[in-house]
C-alpha cells in the first residue's frame, strides 16, 4: 500500500510529460519540417495525423492508468463493526446465541478446536479458540476458552490450564462497510499477508510468464488462438494478469477488438510504470470475483469474506483453488448457483497445480474431496443492516468528510447488537404479516420501523427501517417523520409534574369539553378517543387512559412554552410549532427522535444523546476518535420518577394493558401508546429495566393504517421485548420522593385502613395535607396516637 502511494502520487503533477509522450511528440515535429514537399506530404500528413492521434490517445491512456491506479488503490472503504460480545460468568447468554455469534465471526465448528477461529460444542459445554484481534484500545491475543452454560446463563469460563476467567471480550463482528456509490466495496490485502500458495496458483493458472513479460505475452496469445481455433470457440484466454488488471480497472466487460487493443496498450503502460509486486498486489485487490446484488465483489480479500465469511489467510488449499478457479467466469462458476460446475473447475485447477509440482498428489486428492465450504449468502448489499449503517454514516458525517469515510480504510466500532437487531427485524416482519391477516388489511401495504437503545448511556442497539429490513431503501426509523399522537402526552405530564406545588399524580383534572381559540380566530375543540366526557379525573388516570381533553386542559394550564422547552431539553432540536394541538401530538418526529425522548425518561431524567458509534480507528491502527458516554440531567429525578410510575400504570391497567399477553407483569415495563387521526399512525414507545424501544406502523402513502397504537405497534414492541430478554424495570425511588396513602375518590390524604386507599409517590411536601373523611371515621384513640407518630 505504502509503496503505491509513493509511486503514484509523485507523478501526478507532471502528468503531461509522461515517459512515452516525448518520443511521439518529436516524431510529429520532424514530420512538420518536411511538409514543404507536396508529394511526400500525401503520405506524411495522414501518417503524422495518425501518429499524433495515437500519441494523444496513449497520453490519455497513460493518464487514465495512473489516476485509476491511484484512485482505486486508495479507496479503501470504512469497515464497520458491531459491538463485541462480553463473556463472563453470569452473563445472560445461551449456547445457541454464542453459536450465532461464532457464525457471524466466521468461526468454524469442529470436533476439537486446534487452530484459531474454531469451536466445538457438547451440549452445554463450548470450547473455542478465538482469533487475535485489534480493538480500539489494544491488541487481544487469541484465547482458548472452555465455557459451561446453565439455563441460558454462562456459568463458568476457564482457560486452557483450567484457570477461571473473569471477563473475555470476543472480537467484533463485521457488519458492513461504507463505500461511495461509484466505488466498490473491498477488503484490501497486502502482498505479504497473502498465502504464498495463492500467488503460485495465480501464476500457474493465469499467467505463467508473469515475471518475464512486459504486459502482453505473445506466446500465450498464439497458444490461445490455436486452442480456440481447434475447439471452434473461445476455450482459452491469452491475457496476462496485467491485461486482466487493465480490464478490471478501466474497461467494460464487453468483448471487442478495440477493447482488446486498449487492454494491451494499458497493460504495457502499467508494466512500464509499476513493479511486478505492485501489479500483483493490484491484481489481488482488483480482480472481479463475483456479484452480490448491485455490489461487485472485487479482490480476494472481499471474495474470501463473501464466499467463506473468513479472512483470506484462514483459507485452506481447496478454498483458495476455488477462488482461483472462479476468476475465469464468476457467474459461470458461481459456487452458490452452480456448485457442481464450480467443483469441477476447482479440481481442474488442483490438477494443473499438481502437474506443475505446486501441490503433491496427496494434497491434490485430499483437496479434491473437500466440500466447497461456501457459506450461505448473507443479505444483499454487503450488509444485513442497511438502516443501522445509515445511522452510522450520518453520525460519522458530522465529523468526517465523505471521502474520508469511503476511502481511508477507517475502522468504525459501533454499538450494533446483531442479536437484538435480528430479533427486532423478525418481530417486526412476522407481526406485520399477522396484523394484516387479523385486521383484514391489504397485504403488504403496512410499513413499520423500530429503534432499540440502551436506557443508560443511549447506545443504539438496533435500527429497523422497514419490513424488508435487509434491503436498503427508505429508512423510516430515521426519515419517516410522522405525527406522534399521544406519545407526546408524557412530555406534557412531566412538564406539569415538574411544578410540584401545582400538580401531583392525584391532582384533579377536568375532562369536560374545551374550546381553544387560535390566533386566526379558529376554534379547536378536541375530543376523547371514545367520544365520552369523563368529568373530573385524577391526573394519573388521565395519562393512563390517554384522555385527550383533560390533557389539553392540563397542557394549556401548564403553558405551551413550558411543554415546548421541555421537548427541547429532551433532545428535540427541530423547530416545533407552539399550537394547542401540539398537546395531542401534532408534531412530526421520527422513531429515532421519539426514542431520544423516552431514553431520558428511562434514565431517570438524564439525557444521553443516542449514539451508534463508540470508536473510530485509522487504517494503521491509530486511535482517531471516541464517542464517549455523556449524560446531562434535563429533568428532576423526582418528577421523572412520578411520570415513570404513571407510565407503568399505563401498561398495568391503562391503554397498554394488552402487553400482558406478551410480557410477564413482573417486568413492570413502562410505556405509552400513540394513535393519530384516521388511524394513520400506530405508535408505541416504552422501556424495560435496561432498554428503551420505539415502534411505528403506518403506510408510505400516508393512508390510514387501520390500527391503533395498542392494536399495532404495541404488539410488535411486546414481541421485540419478549425476544430480547428484558430486565425488570425497578425504579429506585429518589430521595426527593415520598409515598403517601391517598383516598382516590376525594384525592385527600388517607391511611392504609381507608377502604380503597392507594399509595402514591409525591415530591416531598407536595402530598395533600387535608385528611379524607375516612381517616376521621377510622379514628379511635389508639390510631390517633399512631398517626401522630408516623405522620
Amino acid at each position, binding site marked *: 500500500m505504502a509503496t503505491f502511494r509513493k509511486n503514484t502520487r509523485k507523478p501526478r503533477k507532471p502528468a503531461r510529460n509522461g515517459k512515452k509522450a516525448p518520443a511521439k511528440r518529436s516524431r510529429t515535429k520532424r514530420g512538420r519540417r518536411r511538409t514543404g514537399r507536396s508529394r511526400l506530404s500525401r503520405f506524411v500528413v495522414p501518417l503524422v495525423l495518425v501518429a499524433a492521434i495515437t500519441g494523444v490517445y496513449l497520453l490519455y491512456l497513460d493518464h487514465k492508468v495512473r489516476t485509476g491506479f491511484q484512485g482505486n488503490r486508495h479507496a479503501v472503504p470504512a469497515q464497520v463493526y458491531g459491538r463485541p460480545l462480553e463473556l463472563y460468568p453470569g452473563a445472560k447468554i445461551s449456547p445457541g446465541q454464542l453459536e450465532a455469534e461464532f457464525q457471524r465471526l466466521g468461526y468454524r465448528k469442529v470436533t476439537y478446536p486446534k487452530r484459531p477461529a474454531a469451536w466445538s460444542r457438547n451440549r452445554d459445554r463450548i470450547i473455542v479458540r478465538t482469533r487475535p484481534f485489534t480493538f480500539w484500545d489494544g491488541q487481544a491475543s487469541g484465547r482458548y476458552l472452555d465455557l459451561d452454560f446453565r439455563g441460558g446463563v454462562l456459568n463458568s469460563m476457564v482457560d486452557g490450564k483450567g484457570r477461571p476467567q473473569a471477563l473475555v471480550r470476543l472480537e467484533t463482528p463485521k457488519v458492513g462497510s461504507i463505500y461511495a456509490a461509484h466505488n466498490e466495496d473491498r477488503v484490501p490485502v497486502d502482498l505479504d499477508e497473502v498465502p504464498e500458495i495463492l500467488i503460485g496458483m495465480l501464476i500457474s493458472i493465469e499467467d505463467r510468464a508473469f515475471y518475464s513479460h512486459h504486459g502482453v505475452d505473445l506466446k500465450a496469445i498464439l497458444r490461445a488462438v490455436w486452442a480456440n481455433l481447434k475447439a471452434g470457440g473461445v476455450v482459452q484466454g491469452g491475457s496476462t494478469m496485467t491485461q486482466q488488471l487493465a480490464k478490471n480497472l478501466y474497461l467494460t466487460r464487453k468483448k471487442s477488438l478495440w477493447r482488446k487493443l486498449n487492454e494491451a496498450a494499458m497493460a504495457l503502460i502499467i508494466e512500464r510504470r509499476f513493479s511486478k509486486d505492485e501489479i500483483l498486489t493490484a491484481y489481488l485487490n482488483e480482480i472481479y470475483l463475483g456479484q452480490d446484488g448491485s455490489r461487485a465483489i472485487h479482490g480476494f480479500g472481499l471474495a474470501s469474506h463473501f464466499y467463506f465469511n473468513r479472512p483470506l489467510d484462514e483459507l485452506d488449499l481447496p478454498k483458495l483453488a476455488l477462488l482461483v478457479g472462479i476468476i475465469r467466469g464468476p457467474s459461470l462458476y458461481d459456487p452458490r448457483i452452480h456448485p457442481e460446475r464450480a467443483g469441477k473447475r476447482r479440481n481442474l485447477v488442483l490438477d494443473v497445480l499438481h502437474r506443475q509440482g505446486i501441490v503433491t498428489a496427496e494434497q491434490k486428492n485430499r483437496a479434491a474431496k473437500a466440500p466447497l465450504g461456501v457459506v450461505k449468502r448473507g443479505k444483499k448489499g454487503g450488509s444485513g443492516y442497511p438502516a443501522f449503517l445509515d445511522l452510522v454514516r450520518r453520525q460519522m458525517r458530522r465529523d468526517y468528510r465523505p471521502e474520508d469515510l469511503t476511502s481511508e480504510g477507517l475502522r468504525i466500532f459501533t454499538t450494533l447488537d446483531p442479536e437484538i437487531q435480528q430479533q427486532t427485524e423478525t418481530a417486526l416482519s412476522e407481526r406485520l404479516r399477522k396484523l394484516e391477516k387479523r385486521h383484514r388489511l391489504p397485504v403488504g401495504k403496512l410499513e413499520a420501523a423500530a429503534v432499540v437503545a440502551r436506557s443508560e448511556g443511549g447506545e443504539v442497539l438496533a435500527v429497523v427501517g422497514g419490513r424488508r429490513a435487509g434491503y436498503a431503501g427508505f429508512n423510516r426509523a430515521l426519515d419517516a417523520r410522522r405525527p406522534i399522537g399521544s406519545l407526546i402526552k408524557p412530555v406534557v405530564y412531566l412538564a406539569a409534574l415538574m411544578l410540584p406545588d401545582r400538580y401531583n399524580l392525584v391532582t384533579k383534572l377536568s375532562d369536560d369539553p374545551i374550546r381553544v381559540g387560535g390566533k386566526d380566530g379558529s376554534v379547536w375543540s378536541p375530543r376523547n378517543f371514545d367520544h365520552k366526557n369523563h368529568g373530573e379525573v385524577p391526573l394519573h388516570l388521565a395519562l393512563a387512559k390517554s384522555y385527550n381533553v383533560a390533557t389539553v386542559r392540563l397542557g394549556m394550564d401548564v403553558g405551551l412554552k413550558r411543554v415546548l422547552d421541555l421537548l427541547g431539553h429532551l433532545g428535540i432540536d427541530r423547530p416545533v410549532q407552539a399550537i394547542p394541538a401540539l398537546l395531542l401530538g401534532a408534531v412530526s418526529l421520527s422513531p429515532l427522535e421519539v426514542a431520544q425522548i423516552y431514553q431520558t425518561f428511562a434514565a431517570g431524567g438524564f439525557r444521553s444523546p443516542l449514539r451508534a458509534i463508540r470508536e473510530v480507528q485509522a487504517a494503521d491502527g491509530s486511535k482517531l476518535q471516541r464517542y464517549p458516554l455523556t449524560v446531562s440531567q434535563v429533568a428532576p429525578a423526582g418528577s421523572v420518577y412520578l411520570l415513570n410510575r404513571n407510565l407503568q400504570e399505563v401498561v398495568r391497567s391503562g391503554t397498554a394493558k394488552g402487553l400482558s399477553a406478551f410480557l410477564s407483569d413482573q417486568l413492570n415495563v413502562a410505556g405509552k401508546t400513540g394513535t393519530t387521526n384516521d388511524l394513520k399512525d400506530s405508535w408505541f414507545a416504552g422501556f424495560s429495566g435496561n432498554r428503551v424501544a420505539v415502534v411505528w406502523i403506518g403506510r408510505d402513502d400516508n393512508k390510514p393504517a387501520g390500527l391503533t397504537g395498542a392494536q399495532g405497534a404495541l404488539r410488535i414492541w411486546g414481541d421485540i421485548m419478549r425476544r430480547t430478554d428484558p430486565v425488570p424495570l425497578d425504579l429506585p425511588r429518589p430521595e426527593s420522593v415520598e409515598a403517601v396513602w391517598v383516598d382516590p375518590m376525594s384525592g385527600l390524604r388517607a391511611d392504609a385502613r381507608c377502604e380503597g386507599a392507594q399509595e402514591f409517590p409525591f415530591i416531598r411536601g407536595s402530598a395533600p395535607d387535608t385528611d379524607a373523611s375516612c381517616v376521621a371515621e377510622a379514628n379511635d384513640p389508639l390510631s390517633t396516637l399512631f398517626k401522630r407518630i408516623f*405522620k
Partner: protein
Amino acid sequence: MMIWLIVLALPIGACSTPMRSSPAMRSSSSLPDDRGGSDQSRKGARTSAYEPQASAAIAPQYSLPVAALLEEASRQEAAKDLTAAVGSVERALRIEPRNAHVWHRLASLRMKQGQYGMAVELAAKSNSLAGGDAELVRDNWRLMARGYRAAGDSDSAEAAERKAQAYR
C-alpha cells in the same frame, strides 16, 4: 418519650398488616433532596427520629467482570492513559448500568481529565442511583463541589459543599 411510643406502637403495627407500608414507615431517610429544596429537607428532619439507623458505609459491590474492568482502569489511570481508563469504566457500565459506584468512578476520571461539567453531571447521575449509600452520596457532592469550583461557579460549589457536609 418517643422511644416509649415506638415500643408501644410496634406490636400494634405488627398485627395490622397494611401498617407495614404506611406512609410514615415508608418515608425513607432524612437525606435532603438531591437538587435543592431546603424546606423539604427540614420536613425530612422532623421524621428522622423514626427512621431506621442511617446505613453504615457499604463497601462497593461489583460483579467479577466489573471488578476486573475497574482494576484495569486503575492500571490505565496509573499509566496516565485516562482515555483508556474511561473506556474500561464505560465497558463496566455496560455490564452494570445501575451501579452508582461505577458512575462515580467515571465522574472522577472525567474530573481528572479536566472535564468538569461532565464530571458534575456524572456525579449527579451516580447520586440518583446511590440509594442509601450515604458515603457515596457525600463523595459525589464533594466531587461536584470541586467540579463547580474548577469551572468557576463558586455559588454552586458552596451549595454542593453544604450538601456534602450534611452526609457526615
